């Protein structure tokens, strides 16, 4: 079976700047698919092309087995899009915003659906409030409600939780989890690597390319490394010592150091180095690497390999 989204060798440039250098991707129905990577890696460009906001440079983009260039209007009836910026009418109320987006999608019988969505996003008490008077998290939920009013089959979210407080972020994720239960396909770009862990599959973007694409678990396993977490002091000395002695990925987090290691043997040698430098190791443990660890590691290797 074909994926609900099929991207083949997609290129795109903005004038001289190359934004995408050949992306291929297949997303299946019902997936919660995450795009991660630094700013300017091509996540937003890819999403905007899939939504028909930008034309592809080279390559093909097909949604529901239709080409986005040929059937943009048909496709746009079946997708929802939530951009980075809060982009609703601030001078319309919550109700009016949803109503407007329902009507321009030709959804005439929207009242029940609207109530459902307001319930779902817990915006019901605020339905008469002007959108501009809502808090950041509520605005984002309203935008989500607007993009869901026509029951899209694919929902594109471009960094929806950027700048939203942690509580609202958690709420937002609960809503997304419910949507996935309804078999909606979600494609989401996020700068938060912890959010990537919640996706069924993740594509890591870097410099206009996808450097890896798999389930979070497989991605973590793919590099064949473990994360060694060491709590020690003085931490600064330890960090400098390790940076000069070994070639592994080292990250400093407050009172602990994270080192990616291959084997128990490496762990031992690291501890020996620390001992020789008069660093007191308080605690240590070996864990699965985080998505972040993997990401840093992959980027580093790509740089080394040219």
């Amino acid at each position, binding site marked *: 079976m074909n994926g609900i989204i099929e991207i083949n060798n997609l290129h795109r440039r903005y004038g001289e700047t190359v934004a995408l250098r050949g992306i291929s991707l297949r997303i299946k129905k019902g997936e919660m698919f995450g795009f991660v990577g630094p700013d300017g890696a091509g996540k937003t460009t890819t999403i905007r092309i899939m939504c028909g906001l930008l034309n592809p440079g080279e390559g093909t983009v097909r949604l529901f087995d239709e080409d986005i260039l040929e059937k943009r209007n048909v496709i*746009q009836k079946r997708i929802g899009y939530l*951009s980075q910026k809060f*982009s609703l*009418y601030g001078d319309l109320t919550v109700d009016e915003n949803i109503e*407007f987006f329902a009507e*321009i999608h030709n959804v005439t019988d929207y009242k029940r659906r609207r109530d459902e969505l307001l319930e779902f996003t817990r915006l019901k008490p605020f339905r008469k409030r002007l959108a501009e008077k809502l808090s950041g998290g509520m605005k984002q939920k309203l935008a989500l409600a607007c993009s869901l009013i026509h029951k899209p089959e694919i929902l594109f979210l471009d960094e929806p939780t950027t700048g939203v407080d942690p509580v609202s972020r958690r709420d937002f994720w609960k809503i997304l989890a419910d949507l996935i239960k309804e078999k909606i396909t979600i494609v989401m770009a996020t700068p938060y690597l912890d959010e990537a862990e919640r996706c069924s599959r993740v594509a890591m973007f870097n410099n206009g390319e996808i450097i890896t694409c798999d389930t979070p678990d497989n991605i973590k396993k793919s590099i064949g490394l473990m994360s060694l977490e060491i709590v020690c002091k003085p931490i600064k000395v330890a960090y400098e010592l390790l940076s000069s002695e070994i070639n592994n990925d080292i990250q400093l987090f407050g009172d602990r150091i994270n080192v990616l290691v291959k084997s128990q043997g490496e762990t031992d040698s690291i501890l020996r180095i620390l001992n020789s430098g008069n660093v007191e190791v308080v605690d240590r443990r070996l864990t699965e690497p985080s998505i972040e660890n993997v990401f840093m590691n992959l980027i580093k290797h790509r740089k080394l390999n040219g």
Partner: protein
Amino acid sequence: MKGNGFATVIHFIIKEFQQLKRDPKMLAIVLAAPVLQTIILGYAATFDVNNVDFYLLDRDKSSVSRKYVEKIINSGYFTIKGNTENYEEIENAIMNGKAVIGLIIPREFEKDIENNNGTKVQIIVDGSDGNKGSIAFGYIQAITAAYAKTILLDKIERNGIRVPLKSVNAETRIWYNPELKTRVFMVPGITALLLMIVTTLLTSLAIVKEKEFGTLEQLIVTPIKPWQMLLGKILPFTTLGLIMILLVNSVMIFWFGIPIKGSLLFFFFASLLFILSTLGIGLFISTVSRTQQQAMMVTVFGAMMPMIYLSGFVFPIENMSRIIQYVTYIIPLKYFITIIRGVILKGIGIADLWQETLILALMGALILFLAAKRFHKRLE
């Protein structure tokens, strides 16, 4: 589906009105400002020269010189601001703007006239305001010539020569604006100007506002089509424009007593065509600008200023240099002002104004087409 297509336009229009309703102050400004401006400008925008201030230095102080000054004052155009003995005071008065004209009557004024020697009066005119100065100068020359004529006739009569003196006499009839009041000529132009300013400015902000707020991006992802959005933007502003025409022209008719002599239907039709061109310009600006501020600047300097200066509203086009005259051909306001001055003041209609009307219609269509095309590109 055609039916559905228009339903979307209507929903879009409803949204536009909901937004207008949310900003009642803005709406009030949009509707009240032109009315107030018409009233104020109706009184302000006049080139009539009345009450020219002048300083007098009468060195003769004779009955003849007094009679001459009386003639000048009784003409109604001049107000005496100072009567001085000192030439320098006249210089100062003109320099300080206390007087536009300085009138110096020489010694022996009466005597020279009596003795048939001929005499001269000196008139100093402040030429810094060229228009006012030359008109005032014209008045004073006419008064002086008339006075000279009576003196001449007097003398002839006193000498008993009863020759009927006859020369050329111009019998003037002034049509359309018999009192030659500039207000009658200006107010229709002002209404056109205000209509242009408000409609262009509002529409120039219309699309760029959605761009700035990011709602445009959201709209592009929906199945709404560009023409539906454009219509959805144009129709509310056209309505607003028509309401403005009604208000502003009511002021003209009922406040200033300048009736529309020609066909009302044609008047509205021409106004509608004109609004289409200003809306087109506004929309076009809106599609090329990135921010509301940009759109505002482009509207003011790129559209409004040239329209005001090159439409014949302020400066007669015939007096402009040839190249500038060619430029005026692309100014829609020029045609509209010709049309409404014709309809309002002369009562002429489409039979005489079909050319201007046609050009206005074509311009409106062209600009709207360009705006739509440009807008279409933006969607890609």
